[in-house]
């Protein structure tokens, strides 16, 4: 069950990433025809990120300490000291950006160049940070794995 929760955290994060990429692409060619979809997708991205944050936050506070102890005894202590430490704080920036995305995308992106440009920048920052989170998560998981393999 705990592993499924961790997978839910990752899956919601990926859903946020995909929805934001869609927002970015739709915004590049914003028109009256896709405005409603952009708004809906920006809300989906924010909702998915909040779910990823809450599930991941619960896992981090209650279950991660056991993994942390394993990582620190293994050959990749930087999986915690660098990757988890930065991830747990960069994710707050990601949450704020995704919360801001529907506010920016609420304007008429088809007619408003400034709103369109700001939406593109915010979406791009979300994609960049979300990919960083996914990569850091991989390093953390590998940190546990190499520690367990080294202890065999």
């Amino acid at each position, binding site marked *: 069950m705990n592993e499924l929760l961790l997978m839910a955290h990752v899956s919601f994060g990926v859903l946020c990433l995909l929805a934001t990429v869609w927002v970015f692409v739709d915004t590049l060619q914003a028109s009256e025809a896709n405005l409603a979809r952009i708004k809906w997708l920006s809300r989906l991205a924010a909702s998915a990120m909040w779910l990823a*944050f809450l599930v991941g*936050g619960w896992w*981090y*506070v209650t279950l991660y300490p056991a993994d942390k102890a394993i990582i620190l005894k293994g050959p990749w202590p930087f999986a915690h*000291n*660098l990757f988890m*430490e*930065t991830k*747990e*704080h*960069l994710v*707050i*920036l990601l*949450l*704020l*950006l995704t*919360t*801001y995305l529907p*506010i*920016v995308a*609420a*304007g008429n992106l088809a*007619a*408003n*160049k*400034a*709103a369109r*440009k*700001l939406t593109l*920048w*915010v979406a791009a*920052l979300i994609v960049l*940070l979300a990919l960083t989170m996914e990569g850091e998560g991989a390093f953390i998981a590998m940190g546990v794995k190499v520690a367990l393999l080294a202890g065999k």
Partner: protein
Amino acid sequence: MENSSLSKNTIAFGLSLAVTSVINGLLVVAKEKSPAVQSLMKRLIGHHWITHSAGIILLFLVLGWLLAKTNGGQGVKIAFPNLLGTVVGGVALGALIIVGFYLFAD
């Protein structure tokens, strides 16, 4: 017809995002360098990260709401290039403080 006016919420929460991003980074440095700060954050809600996250999210919401209420309810006025630079610069600086701290200072 193209226009370039942004809503008061877009400007207010954009500025709030920039400010809270930097404060988020500075709070990381403060709690990692000061055991007293980290201890206080643990005592407030039970875990330093929960206090940190809840505080930053609350600050983002309250500051954005306040900035939208200023100027007689019309919100803060700022030229678009300045807003864009502030938002992108604030988020980038906040991220660099965190990564830089754990890479070089911790």
